Structures are given as C-alpha cells and as structure tokens.
C-alpha cells in the first residue's frame, strides 16, 4: 500500500500520542524511531525534528541514538536492499568477487543507493546458510551458489520486473 506523507505523519503522531500517555515516555525514543523508520524507510531530519518537538527530546540527543544503532537508516534506501554476506564461508568461496561485481554493475559503494533509488548495497555477516555460499539477500529472499554471471542476471531480472 502506498501511503502519502500526510498519512504517515498522522500515524507517527498517533503513535507518539499513545506513548506520551505512559510514564517516562521520553525513554520510549527507540520505539518511536523504529516506528518512524517503518513508516518512512529511513529517519530524515524533518521527522527527527517532529519527534523532538512532540516528545520533548533535544534533537542532538535523538541524533545520538539514531547514529548509535546500525539498524537505523539516516538516508533513504532503494526499493531493493542487497546484502552480500562477507562471513567466513562466503568469503572463502569468493564473496569479495561477488561484491565487486555488484559494485561495478550498479556503480555504487557499500552503504550507497543507486541514483534511481532502486538498489541499496550493504554488506552483512553470516546469514546461516553457509551450505549455499556465497550468498546474498535481496530484501527477504536468499540467493545462493552465486557466481558473477548469476549475480548480474539476478540484478537484470529485478530491473526488468521494474519496467
């Protein structure tokens, strides 16, 4: 479902209003940041300003929490998030080469998003599917036994799906 920003903001505000009814509501900041990220996909400065004003928490403090946890994204992510496993098994089976191929294909570095906001590239540690090494995840789907050729095909097929 596509939500407009107004709808998202209303939902975030309602969420905060509920939390404000509780004691020591300012200690619920992480829950609020999770909610905001769930709605927007990332934590933008304007959203953090909104949280600061509503929850009475200085923005410098919110920024501290948002940057402390890796889970929070401070920049918008692409439609598809690629996580290449660099765990030991995958690494031995050539994950570095896979990563290089994706970087070259999409012309982005780790942590970056393509200009068309379609792909975001991330690295990750062991995904627990070492039997399929080298592996990567795109969104919540695991792709195993990768080769450079196979990776390019997967990226292309996703891109075509978009068209």
């Amino acid at each position, binding site marked *: 479902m596509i939500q407009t920003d107004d709808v998202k903001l209303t939902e975030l505000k309602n969420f905060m209003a509920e939390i404000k009814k509780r004691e020591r509501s300012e200690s619920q900041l992480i829950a609020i940041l999770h909610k905001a990220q769930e709605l927007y996909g990332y934590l933008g*400065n304007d959203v*953090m*300003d909104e949280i*600061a*004003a509503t929850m*009475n*928490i*200085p*923005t*410098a*403090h*919110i*920024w*501290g929490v948002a*940057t*402390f946890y890796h889970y929070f994204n401070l920049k918008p992510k692409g439609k598809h998030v690629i996580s290449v496993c660099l765990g030991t098994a995958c690494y031995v089976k050539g994950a570095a080469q896979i990563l290089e191929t994706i970087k070259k294909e999409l012309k982005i570095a780790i942590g970056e998003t393509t200009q068309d906001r379609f792909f975001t590239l991330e690295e990750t540690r062991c995904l627990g599917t070492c039997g399929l090494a080298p592996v990567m995840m795109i969104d919540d789907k695991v792709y195993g036994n990768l080769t450079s050729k196979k990776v390019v095909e997967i990226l292309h097929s996703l891109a075509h799906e978009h068209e």
Partner: protein
Amino acid sequence: MKKIKITINDKPYEVDDGQTIMQAADKLGFRIPRLCYHPKLSIEGACRVCIVQVEGMRNYVASCAYPVSGGMKIQTNTEEIRQARRDIVELILDNHPEDCHTCERDGVCELQRLAHLTGMRHRHFEGEKKHYDKDLSSSSVVRDPNKCVLCGRCVRLCSEVQNVFALGHAHRGFRTVVVPAYNMPFKDSVCTACGQCINVCPTAAFVEKNFTQELYPKMGDTSLIKIAQVAPSVRAAIGEAFGLEPGRTMELQTVAALRRLGFDYVFDTQFSADLTIMEEASEFLERLQGKGKLPMITSCSSAWMKCVEQFHPDFLENISTCKSPMSMMGAIIRTYFAEKIKKRPEDIVSVAVMCCTAKKYEAARPELMVNGLPGVDMVITTREIAWMIKSAGIDFVNIKGENFDEPLGLSSGAGAIFGTTGGVMEAALRTAYELYTGETLMDIEIQDIRGLKGVKVGKVVMDGKEIRVAVAHGLGNASKLLDEVRRDPNKYHFIEIMGCPGGCVGGGGQPYAGSNSIPLDEECLKKRAEALYGLDRSKTIRRSHQNPDIQRIYKEFLGRPLSATAHRILHTHYQAKKPCGIIPRELQVR
C-alpha cells in the same frame, strides 16, 4: 548527617554518609586524579581515571560515582592502582594527536597535566588517530573532534547548565564524536556561542575562533587608527593568565599593555556601560509609564540574545532595545569620536577586548551596523589578548599602569559592576531611582541581587511605587525565570539576564582554570566579582548619570536619552530565529 568510619590508604577517618568516595576523599585532602567529573555536572563515570581500590570489590571502582559506606577500606595510591590509572590515561591519549607544541592549549591543557600527574613518561600504545575536519563555521567557537577525549563535560554543561542542548554524542565505539544534531555546522545549530564548552573542555576540542592573526596586519598598517575597548570583567581575570591569583584587578596595566601593543586609543567599555544605563534606565521608566511591555529584560549578553531569539520569541517585546555596551561603544567610535578626531569611520579599526566568545557573533550581526560599517571590527577574548601581550614580550605583571583615553574612558562604579551577575540591574536601579524620584538613592549597594544564587530577586521603592526585580545568570536559570514570568506576567518589572554562570566574569573567553583550580569554580567567580565591586567602591562617582563625560556626550552629540540620534545609533531590534535542530520549550524549563 550520619557519620561512618572508613579507611583511606590504611588510615582511619570518620566521614559523612551519603557522599561519594571522591567527595569524602576531597575533604580529607586526597585529590584523586579525575577527568570527566565536574562538581556542577551530573556524574557520567565515563573516563575511569578516578578509579580506586576498595577491599572486597572485584574490580576497581570509579570514585566519582561510588558512595562511601561504613567500614569501607579504600586505597588511592598503591602501585597497582597507579599503574592501572596510568594505563587508562595512556589509552585515552593513544589516539590523541601528538601536536602539543603547536596546540592552542599547550601549557594550559588539563589532559597534559593529567598525563604528567599520572606519571606517563612513555607512550606504549600507538592507536589509530581520528581524522575529522574542524568545524570553523561559527564566528565564535571552533570544534576540533580530533582532540576530543569524549569526557562529555561539554555535552553535560550545554544541556544541564545552559539548557541549550546543542551538543550530543553521536555514533559509537571509535567513531563516537561530539557534534550538534544532524552533524550540522555549528553556526546553523542552536549553539548560543556562550563558549562555556571551551571553559569546561580539558583539551583543545573547543577553542574560540582566534582573531589574533587577522589583527596583527591591521596593527601594522600605519594608515589606520587602532582603537581598543576593554570590557569590565577582562581586568578582573586577565591576571590569572599571568599566574596571578583570581580577583587581582589589572585595569591600568591592561591599558598600558594595549598601548604597547600599538593601539592609538584605549577606551573603556565601562564608559559605554554608563551610556547603556542612561538609555536603559530611561527606557525602563518609559515602559513603567505605560509605553512598552513589562517586565523589561536586559539585552547586554550576546549569548542570551541568541537564546531569546530562538527559544523564547514570546519575550522579544520585553527585551530592551538598547545595544550592548560593546556595540554602543563601537557605534560612538564610528560617529562621535571619528568626527572628533576628523577621521573617516572606515579608517578606524575598532577592536573589542572581551571576556566573551558570543561577542564575536554579536559583532558580526548585520542589524548592529552603523552607517554601513560594523561598530566593532574584531572581538578578542581575554585569553587571546593575554597571549598577544605575552607574545609581544610585555612584562604585564610589573608594567606601570596607565589611564584610559578621553573622551570615552571615564566610567562610574556602576559601569564597573556590569561585569558580574546582578551588576547591570544594580547600576540601572541607581540611575532609574534618581531619574524617577529626583532624590539621591542612599543605599546604592543592592545586596539581594549580588552573589551566585541562580535566580535572585529584590525590590526598590520609588516614590511609594514598589519595583520588583529579578536577576538570572546562566541560560538554564534564565529559562526557569522566564517560565515563572509566563505563569505570572506581573511578578517583576525589570529582569536582568546574563548568559554565563556568574555573569561576564565567568565568560567563555576568560583565562583557563589553572592547575589548582577547576573550570567555573565558584570561588574564582566570586573573587573576580569582588574585584569589580572593589573598583566600584574605590570610585567617587558611582552612578552612571553623574559621569561627567557621559553628560558631555549627551550635550555635544546625543541630546538626551532616547533621542532620535540615540535611537538611531544606540538601539536595535531583535527577531525570532528558527535554527535547525529545535529544542522544545517545555524541555527548556524542566
């Protein structure tokens, strides 16, 4: 208070219950080395420098955070604890730049002193260094995260004492850094430029924007007339930068040193403080008669002005329209004085020697321009001028004192006390009372509004009318006071607010705490304040309106207080600002 028995280093002592090991040890004369601790701030226990051994405890305990208890056996100075403490300091230093000899704080650095104190004579660890760009965006404060040891004193001071919340810790582990929200440039943030982060920083992670190197070429330009003005609290503190005890007044020595540095005229900001009082007291009396909003709030403190514009815009109408004494002096130099010496205003270099970093910000404010020129070209802090004096080889401590130049150098005692919290109010009341009643105010020392209490209140009766006044120093106290006024708008008639704890004597540009002192030490602030009260007592003229040079400038140039000319060059207006990274007001007053 219940007494308990403890031992420290095998000697028995009886101490009060309910305090930390560090507090108990301090009172017994054991000064355990420390870094992140500051008595005015909450306890963070971040640096672990103050560890001690406690019998029965598996690990060393941070004495700043751990309470004493009956029968506790504490060791502060065994070989083992000395080694552990030294290792901790060494680890703090292992990613610190090794550039002491080119660092602005060389010789006045708390981290240097700590390394020496703990006996670090070798560097065993060679850690990865940090590589951040300096934030040079602010006109007042420079932030250099490479030198930061993450003690967090600035973060706590900015939040707990000033309630500005400009700084926080961001990221984690080795990448932890003290920054404004969103990693935005300082100038765009809620920072009020008060400079207290500089005062509490143990290293050079925060320093003032230094203008000495820009000033030198101007000092060497013979086509320019070089004019300095000196703020009251500079003379009360500058001696400390030369190893003198706090509270030693170095007024005439400062004038002599500035002349030796090459200034053609040395004027006294205390003169323009008297001028401020003439305008401000008259403005207050007008408001009292219904022309304008009450309570009237003072506008001398630059950090306070930025604070009110961004956090308390609902009080903008209450703010006095008077420029600060520094900016009034700048305006008078560019007009009245330039005309007197028959020079073009642009051929004058107007330098203000201030206790303040926020004055650097104020000097650059476009609304304070006079005929297209800034009243003050450059603001130099007490620390910067002390360095210039030392660097020029001037024997400041033994120099023969000289008087300020006429016609902007003579001041009343009221002008002197401007530099301490409560001083502006006291000075204004001395004049307002006499202008209003036509009688002499007998008791001119108003004790209720002196001292270091956060918010002070007092009253005077003028012709049967009770005038209630309040004084706050430090922006946190200011917020509390304003909240009181929001609840009861008629509670006070006149309010003085100073951005820094202690007023200007505690300004962000004052000399660093020496080896036997701590930043923001109340005893030190009291001594500096007492130096100014001493100056006041030593003067025969203690009321601004009796200063003959003030009377003369009104006769020759300004006409009368609040005249059209006075309004044009001595008054201004303030506007609401919305910086990035807002701070909700509710939090301000919590």
